[in-house]
């Protein structure tokens, strides 16, 4: 550790460090294993940088306060695990329709319900996209290492601010609790994106007006002199509610297009030994680490195997995964659930490749051996 930027760090700690680097100045949450360290470390670190930490009465209040603080100008985050993630769903929809940037961390544990509180899982993948009622845009990222937890937390804030929406970081108990080497990048290696604010002194500020060439509406903060209105009802560009079906249609359309039109910007992934691969494993989060080991083991045995590792879980990497399917004969989706992401892979890929899954949802990380066995089976 000659280089002072090299540290041994826990995944949950890296999440907080990444958030602080991205500019987080507000955290509100409620303790729950295995995400609790994120709250604990935030409570310790935030006041030192003039930020605010709040332990609320429950997870719902946690995300609600997070959204309120973001509207008041602070980059804000909340963190939880399964049961808390379920409770936060209604508010995720609110942040989506009202376009309030915030980061929601879910350190996944064994479900359903209280399930296996201290064991890892990747059972909330589909929930991240579909957990709240109604259609809405979703960005969810999943890191495979402590360093990547740091990086993707920053990305999560950046996307949140850039696209004015809640962004989810889906990690899991393995990544959240393990400690490993991390080299903290220097400031100039890191891109930080802030929300676009209206020029001050505007006569009239329409909080939901998007002008030619703009990605999202400019976002003022409460208290800055723009006395604007925010609601979770369908609203027009002035921010006030409307029942007009055109207004409703256009609003939803615009919300979804923030993603659809910028999909490349949001597509993060890694390809590993994929070029000549006949079998490609698709895996994310901690499972991708097992998958990488499995690929190496398979290659040692002369099997042509590669790994496609999405870091962006949502939006689904349609293009890349279609390409992967076209390239490979077999695709194996390895995930710590009973088959979630694999459904989407099938949707885009089953025209082109034979798709199977290597799934486990018993509280244990899938092992390289299990994946290797599956590789040999297909």
């Amino acid at each position, binding site marked *: 550790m000659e280089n002072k930027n090299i540290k041994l760090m826990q995944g949950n700690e890296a999440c907080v460090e990444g958030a602080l680097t991205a500019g987080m100045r507000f955290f509100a949450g409620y303790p729950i294993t295995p995400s609790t360290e994120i709250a604990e470390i935030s409570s310790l670190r935030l006041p030192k940088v003039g930020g605010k930490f709040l332990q609320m009465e429950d997870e719902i209040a946690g995300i609600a306060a997070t959204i*309120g603080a973001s509207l008041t100008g602070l980059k804000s985050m909340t963190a939880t695990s399964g049961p808390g993630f379920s409770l936060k769903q209604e508010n995720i929809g609110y942040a989506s329709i009202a376009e309030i940037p915030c980061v929601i961390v879910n350190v996944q544990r064994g479900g359903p319900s209280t399930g296996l509180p201290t064991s890892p899982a990747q059972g909330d993948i589909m929930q991240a996209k579909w957990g709240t009622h109604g259609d809405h845009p979703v960005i969810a990222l999943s890191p495979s290492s402590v360093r990547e937890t740091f990086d993707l937390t920053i990305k999560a804030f950046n996307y949140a601010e850039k696209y004015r929406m809640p962004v989810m970081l889906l990690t899991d108990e393995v990544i959240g609790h393990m400690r490993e080497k991390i080299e903290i990048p220097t400031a100039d290696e890191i891109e930080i994106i802030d929300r676009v604010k209206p020029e001050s002194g505007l006569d009239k500020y329409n909080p939901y007006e998007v002008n030619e060439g703009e990605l999202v509406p400019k976002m003022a903060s409460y208290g800055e002199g723009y006395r604007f209105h925010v609601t979770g009802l369908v609203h027009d560009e002035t921010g*006030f509610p409307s029942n007009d079906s055109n207004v409703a249609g256009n609003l939803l359309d615009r919300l979804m297009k923030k993603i659809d039109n910028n999909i490349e910007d949001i597509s993060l992934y890694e390809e590993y030994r994929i070029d000549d691969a006949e079998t490609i494993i698709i895996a994310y989060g901690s499972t991708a680490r097992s998958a990488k080991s499995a690929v190496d083991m398979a290659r040692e045995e002369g099997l042509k195997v590669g790994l496609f590792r999405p870091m962006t879980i949502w939006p689904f990497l349609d293009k890349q995964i279609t390409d992967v399917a076209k390239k490979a004969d077999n695709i194996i989706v390895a995930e710590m659930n009973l088959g979630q992401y694999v459904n989407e892979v099938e949707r885009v890929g089953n025209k082109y490749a034979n798709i199977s899954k290597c799934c486990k949802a018993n509280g244990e990380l899938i092992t390289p051996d299990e994946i290797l066995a599956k590789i040999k089976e297909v």
Partner: protein
Amino acid sequence: MASALVENHFRSNKLPHIWCPGCGHGIIMRSIVEAIDELGYNKDDVCVVSGIGCSSRAPGYMDYNTLHTLHGRALAYATGVKMANPKLKVIVITGDGDCAAIGGNHLIHAARRNIDITTVVFNNNIYGMTGGQYSPTTPTGEKGTTAPFGNIDKNFDLCNLAKAAGATYVARATAYHANMITKLVKAGMENKGFSFVEAVSVCPTYYGRKNKKGDAVQMMRYLKDSSVNVKAAKKLPKEKLEGKFFIGEFHKVEEPEYTEQYQKIIDSFQKER
């Protein structure tokens, strides 16, 4: 074409509001605005947060920073707003359902923290927005669309509850006592801490109709005739208090305010540097 107060403090292009004829909510909303006017706050510094309900539609008409959130969650959002910028004068407008049914937990916890938010409950003893179901403040025995045989629940005394939970200013007035609401809201806003003002409203459309309370005028008359100022109450004989409810200031204490306490932690590190 409205009074100077209305022109100054409302988004008058949004008026008239959606509330029914004779709904007490309009009176209370005006009284709040009057309080802000009298306090001379800069409108840019005022933030009004609400949940969901007829009452919670109020902020949409008020020319401040306004936030219409989710059913029951106004205080949780407001807590985030206030913590993020303690300079803001934060008011929460909520209904009896919003505040005391689904939002009850946020109420007691905001009160407990003594965070500097003034909460005004438009208590019409019913869920107005959804069409007249009984609420946690519907008096026992009265009817709602979900209490067709009379409500068997005991109703909350919201002021008592807020006090027990930790609010440092607690008071009640009614839509009839419009000036008193203004007075109490002013006192609440000036209290550095969590202030709770129950503003008894009327819902002629549902509560009135279901319970044969007559029209808006009769309901307003009831508010006038059945309320007794706590201060006066002490001097009155018991018989005179039967069937009456109290209005006025119930509780007022000074205690450390949440955002100030948090600032002290921040400051302790500033000094260290």
